Structures are given as structure tokens and as C-alpha cells.
């Protein structure tokens, strides 16, 4: 059994100094921004906001400066992220590129790929989506069937992806596809990653899927003899599984894993007000206690990243705890305030209505609750 320890981390002065800058930026850009839009935060997009963040150097903050990155620490990046999320800033346009596609390209991409794609990401002008899931492959990602065949001057892709967040606005997809037939003896072999231009590639069709909260956020993506050039391959042919696992670790450790429903806590505190009874105060207090301890754990992970560690087990634990917290928030708010929110009501009603519905997806996206617990169980030596 691994020793599971989250050394308390403190943010260094340069990170705290950045906080004030970010707050001013948010105050300038998001004046009068409505509660229900804030509640969408990292699923709400605003290209102008992304560009403005890029101009400030707040996308690709930890990446090397030679590609337009900021060369700053993970702790500075952490502060920018948490401030954006706590304010409910519309950061989703560039979110995936900043969080995982950029780091993936920097780690596994060629020099040409880095020069070609990274600078535009840091400017907040280039958005990415993730093509992993398929209709018959969700948690069992290794079972995907979309395939790429070698052609004279590149690859031809056929198959289908689903649940692809933001495929309709993204410039590029990084897709996991099969480049060799499935090998029953090694299920993880024969998978490769491709960078697909979503605007220019012929044979790519995007069909939006409306979610139960009424948004059009994720999509089906069809590939019918979609031709991509040879340099669309990211990393090594057949090495896709290892790359995807690394990529998913980037996806699991950030503050978005406990701040997704922060706006509801904010509205709830406003709604309950200072003359609350003991049960209401205790309910709010429990939520605040979790918020503050989860934040410490998340900062601890940022500190481990800064030291060059890869805290995969710790990240899975924070995701398990954070997702439970943010997903339980609407239920707790219901216990405390006891309303049936109306979508035409005030901020509290609107945020409560949206969050109650949206929270169902929190324990699915980025690896389900059960899959995360499986990872933790492996860390405990149970499997």
C-alpha cells in the first residue's frame, strides 16, 4: 500500500502577486456577468475572453517561452486557474488546449508540430477537442474501433467519436484511433493519436448532441475516408495508449475538479444570509470545510507537479473527493434552502436549476467515479 500523503503546500509570493492582477482583470472583463453564465465557467466559451487571457500570458503559462509559453511555475498557473473558476469566467474555448493538448504536443509532438500549433494556443486563438470516446467504447477506451490506414502520403481515417466536447468550435481534435487490428493478447497495443484539422479536413462531419440541461456542448463526430497528412500523427505509431494515459493525468488534477459548482455555494450563501439558523449555518459550514480542505489538497498536487513528480494516485484521490463534493452540492443546497428552483427566477434559482442538472455529468467526464476508484484501489494494492 502506497503512503498517501498530501504535504501542505503554500503558494509562493509571486503566485499570490499574480492573484491581484487576475482579480482586476476579471473585474474589468466580467462586470455584470450573470450568475447562471458564471455557473457554466469551464463549459462556457467566449473567444474574446480567451484572446484577452492569451494576451496576458495566462494560457500555456508553464510552457517554454520559445513556443510562446510563459515559462512560469505550476503554482502561478494554479492561481490563475482557481481565480478564473471561482469567478465563473468563460474559459472553456481554450481550456482543453491549455490543460492537455498543449502539454501533450510538447511532450510527444515533433519540433515542427510544436512550432506550428503551440503559439496559437498560447494566444487564445486555437481550440482543441478530445476524440477518445466512441458509441461502444466509454470506460473501456482500449476497445475503440475508429481506424487509420496508411496511404501514399498520409493516413485515411474511418469511424466515429462521440461525446466530443466543443468539437463544433474546436480547430483541432486529438483523436485516439486504431492503426493496427486489436490484439487480444495486448489490448493496449496498436493505438495511435492524430491531430486532425476540424475545419479543413474533408470527410469529417460534426453533429451536435443536446444535453439534458438544454446545452449544445458535446457532439458526435463522423470520419468517412477523412484524409490527413503524414505529420498528423502525434508521437509514435502504436504508442497511443501510453500517451493517452499521460494526457488523462493532466485532466485529473486541477482545481476544476472541485470548483465546478462554486457558483452555487456563492449564491446559496447570499440566499441564506447572515441571520441563518443553526442547521443552515452548519450546512454551509460543512461545504466551506470541504472547499478549504480540497483546495489545500489541490495546491499540494500543484506543488508535486512543480517538483517534477507525477502524482497519479494523488490526482485520482482529489478527483474522487472533489467530484463527490461538487456533485453533492445541489443536494446539500436543497437540504439547506429547500426550494424547487424556477428557471425564470433570480440568480439563486437559475444557478440551482442549472447545477442540479449539470452535476450529473461531473462523475462521468474525465473517467467515471468507478474507474477513478479502480485506480485508487490499484494504488492500495487491492488489484
Amino acid at each position, binding site marked *: 500500500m502506497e503512503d498517501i500523503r498530501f504535504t501542505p503546500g503554500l503558494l509562493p509570493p509571486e503566485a499570490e502577486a499574480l492573484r491581484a492582477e487576475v482579480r482586476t482583470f476579471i473585474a474589468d472583463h466580467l462586470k455584470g456577468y450573470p450568475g447562471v453564465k458564471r455557473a457554466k465557467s469551464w463549459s462556457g466559451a467566449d473567444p474574446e475572453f480567451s484572446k484577452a487571457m492569451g494576451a496576458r500570458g495566462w494560457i500555456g503559462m508553464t510552457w517554454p517561452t520559445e513556443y510562446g509559453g510563459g515559462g512560469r511555475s505550476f503554482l502561478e498557473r494554479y492561481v490563475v486557474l482557481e481565480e478564473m473558476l471561482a469567478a465563473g469566467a468563460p474559459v472553456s474555448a481554450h481550456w482543453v488546449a491549455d490543460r492537455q493538448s498543449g502539454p501533450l504536443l510538447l511532450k510527444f509532438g515533433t519540433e515542427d508540430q510544436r512550432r506550428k500549433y503551440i503559439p496559437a494556443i498560447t494566444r487564445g486563438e486555437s481550440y482543441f477537442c478530445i476524440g477518445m470516446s466512441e458509441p461502444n467504447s466509454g470506460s473501456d477506451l482500449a476497445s475503440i474501433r475508429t481506424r487509420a490506414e496508411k496511404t501514399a502520403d498520409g493516413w485515411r481515417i474511418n469511424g466515429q467519436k462521440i461525446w466530443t466536447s466543443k468539437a463544433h468550435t474546436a480547430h483541432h481534435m486529438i483523436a485516439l484511433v486504431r492503426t493496427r487490428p486489436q490484439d487480444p493478447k495486448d489490448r493496449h497495443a496498436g493505438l495511435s493519436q492524430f491531430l486532425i484539422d476540424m475545419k479543413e479536413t474533408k470527410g469529417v462531419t460534426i453533429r451536435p448532441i443536446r444535453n439534458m440541461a438544454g446545452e449544445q456542448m458535446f457532439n458526435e463526430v463522423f470520419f468517412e475516408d477523412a484524409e490527413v497528412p503524414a505529420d498528423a500523427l502525434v508521437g509514435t505509431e502504436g504508442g497511443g495508449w501510453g500517451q493517452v494515459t499521460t494526457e488523462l493525468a493532466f485532466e485529473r488534477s486541477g482545481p476544476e475538479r472541485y470548483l465546478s459548482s462554486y457558483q452555487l455555494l456563492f449564491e446559496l450563501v447570499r440566499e441564506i444570509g*447572515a441571520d441563518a439558523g443553526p442547521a443552515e449555518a452548519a450546512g454551509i459550514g460543512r461545504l*466551506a*470545510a470541504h472547499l478549504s480542505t480540497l*483546495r489545500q489538497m489541490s495546491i499540494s498536487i500543484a506543488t508535486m507537479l512543480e517538483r517534477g513528480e507525477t502524482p497519479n494516485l494523488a490526482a485520482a484521490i482529489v478527483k474522487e473527493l472533489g467530484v463527490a463534493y461538487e456533485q453533492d452540492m445541489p443536494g446539500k443546497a436543497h437540504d439547506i434552502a429547500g426550494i424547487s428552483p424556477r428557471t425564470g427566477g433570480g440568480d439563486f434559482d437559475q444557478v440551482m436549476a442549472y447545477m442540479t442538472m449539470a452535476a450529473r455529468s461531473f462523475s462521468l467526464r474525465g473517467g467515471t467515479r468507478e474507474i477513478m476508484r479502480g485506480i485508487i*484501489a490499484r494504488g492500495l494494492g487491492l488489484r
Partner: protein
Amino acid sequence: MTGTSEMANILAEAAGRLLEDHVTRGVLGAAEDGTWPSDLWQVLEDNGLTQPLAPEDRGGRGASFADAFVIAFAAGRRRAPVPLVETMAAGWLLGRAGIEVPAGPLALIDGGGDLTFKDGALSGVAEGVPWAAQAGHLVAEIDGTVALIPTDAVTITPDRNMAGEPRDTVTFAKAKPSGTGTLDLTATLPVARTLGALMRAAQMAGAMEGAVTLAVQHAGDREQFGRPIAKFQAIQQMLARAAARAAQARSAAETAFLALDRAGDDLTDAEWDVAAAKVVAGEAAEIVYDAAHQTHGAIGFTYEHELHFTTRRLWAWRGEFGAETFWAQDIGRRVLARGADNLWPDLTARQMG
């Protein structure tokens, strides 16, 4: 950023080893039957583990709270049946109030609630006082005054908590302290309660790690349907969830110890971190003891098996020095009084480096 200090390493090593060696099942059982484990106490005192927090010129080691965390954690992990954490906390209080710290176990009185301090003497009744009968002295804090009272100046009626740990009723009838001093601290809650909750949060985190470890071991050993029960996904998922909550409790407790070091003379903000630690520890305990017992099956329900020495303490400790409701209300009131707009700025400012 805090790493692990030299002092913390020394203390962790000593506490871990001594407690593991000396807190045997026999000692635990005997303590519950009323035998004071004098050898255990002696070895802890001889190795300087009982007064890490008191200043060196008052008989302590002058360690930081961050350093002392490991002792409290180990005390819970090993279920030390002695008032180790109470003595540590009381020693810190005495040190802050400029009172010489006596040798031997100390009993820390929670809150100060009904006690009055008038004309140089204490009156009133304190209930559930840990190890009053075994301690040489009691330490109370009443409205900023710290009093050290020899136990022969009070009347003690023995009682016990669910885990069989002494939790006595102490009657003070104009009891004369052998030393008093003033706490030069700003705090919104009785300091003894905050310190007690801090210690219990760390012990609970330790105990939860112990319970998860026992359950993981048992799951690997016990076979049903032709394989170790660890191979059943239901068991894996249950223990994964429990381990995550235990890790949260540990992180929260460690953060609270650090907050006390940073607090200086104003404990107001540190009280928040202590409150958060006690709340998440209590909530985590519910999940951890459920998972640990369920994994063990009937054997875990026997007195013979050691699991209950840990889980019964978790039940008892949840309610001591303020249960979750007490601390959650405290934080909740603060949040509500400050309003939604200050919630995030206050949170980030409080945990600033």
C-alpha cells in the same frame, strides 16, 4: 511551501517505533480494564515525546505544531491508551501562559464551560475530562487565564467513553491552582477546545489510516468464492472511497497544525482550519469505519479482533472537543456574516503563504 523538517523526521521515527512496539493488543486490553500503562508512558516521556510543544526553558522541546503533527497522528494510528495529545496541548498552553510544565500526564479540560475562576480558585464541574484520574495535574483555560491544578485539589468521578478511555467528571470546589498565567492571544473560541479539536483531528486521521490498512490487509488474506475478497470490485470501490476520505482528513489535519504555527498571537484564522479539519475528519470517519467493518465481516465484530480498538475510538473522538455540528456552525456563521462576496477572497487570504 513546507517540507518535512529534521525535527519532524526525528519525532515521526521515534513516535512511530515506540508506539508500535509498546501499544500491543495486551496493553490496549489491559488499559480498557483499568490498568494504567505506566511503561508506555515512561518510554514516551523518556524519549521526549510528551512535551514537544512546550518551550525548552519550560521543560519542553520547543517544536513547531507542524513537527508535532506526526506524534498526534501516530498516537491515533497506534491507539495509544494514554493522554499523549492532551499532555502535548496542555504543555503548549502552560508554556504560552508562562507556567512551568510539570512532568507526567496532564489532563486538558475542554472549553472551560461551567468553570469559574474567582479569588484565585476554581469552582464548577467539568465532564468527560480525558484521563483526569491518571493525570498528576489538570490544565484549564477560562477566559484567557490558564490554570494548572493538582489533581489532589479536586474530586474525580471516573467515567469512560465508548472506547473505554477514561473520561472523568471533575468537581472543583474552590480548587487552588499551583500556577496561573494569562494567555496573550486573540481567539474567538476557548483555546483549550481548539487545541483539543486539533489533536483529535490528527488522531482521527491516524486512526483512519490504521483502519484502512487493516481492511486492505484483511481483504488480501481472506478468501471467499475461491479468491481473495480484495478481488471483488465492490470491496475495491468501498475501500478506495474510504482511503480517499482518510487522505482528506490527514491533509486537513496537517494543514490545521501548520495554521497554528502561522497564527502567531491571533488564532482567529487558525480556528477555521481546525474547524475544517474536525468536520472533515468526522465525516470521513463515518465512511471509513463503515468500510473497514464491512470488509472484515463477522471477525471484525468480535472483541478478539483488534479493529474495534480503532473504530470505537473514532466514534468517541468524533464527539469530543466539539462534534462536526459545533465546528460546522462556527465556520458557517463566519461565512454567512462575511457574505458571499468575501467567501473566496477570505479563503485564499487565510491560506496564504
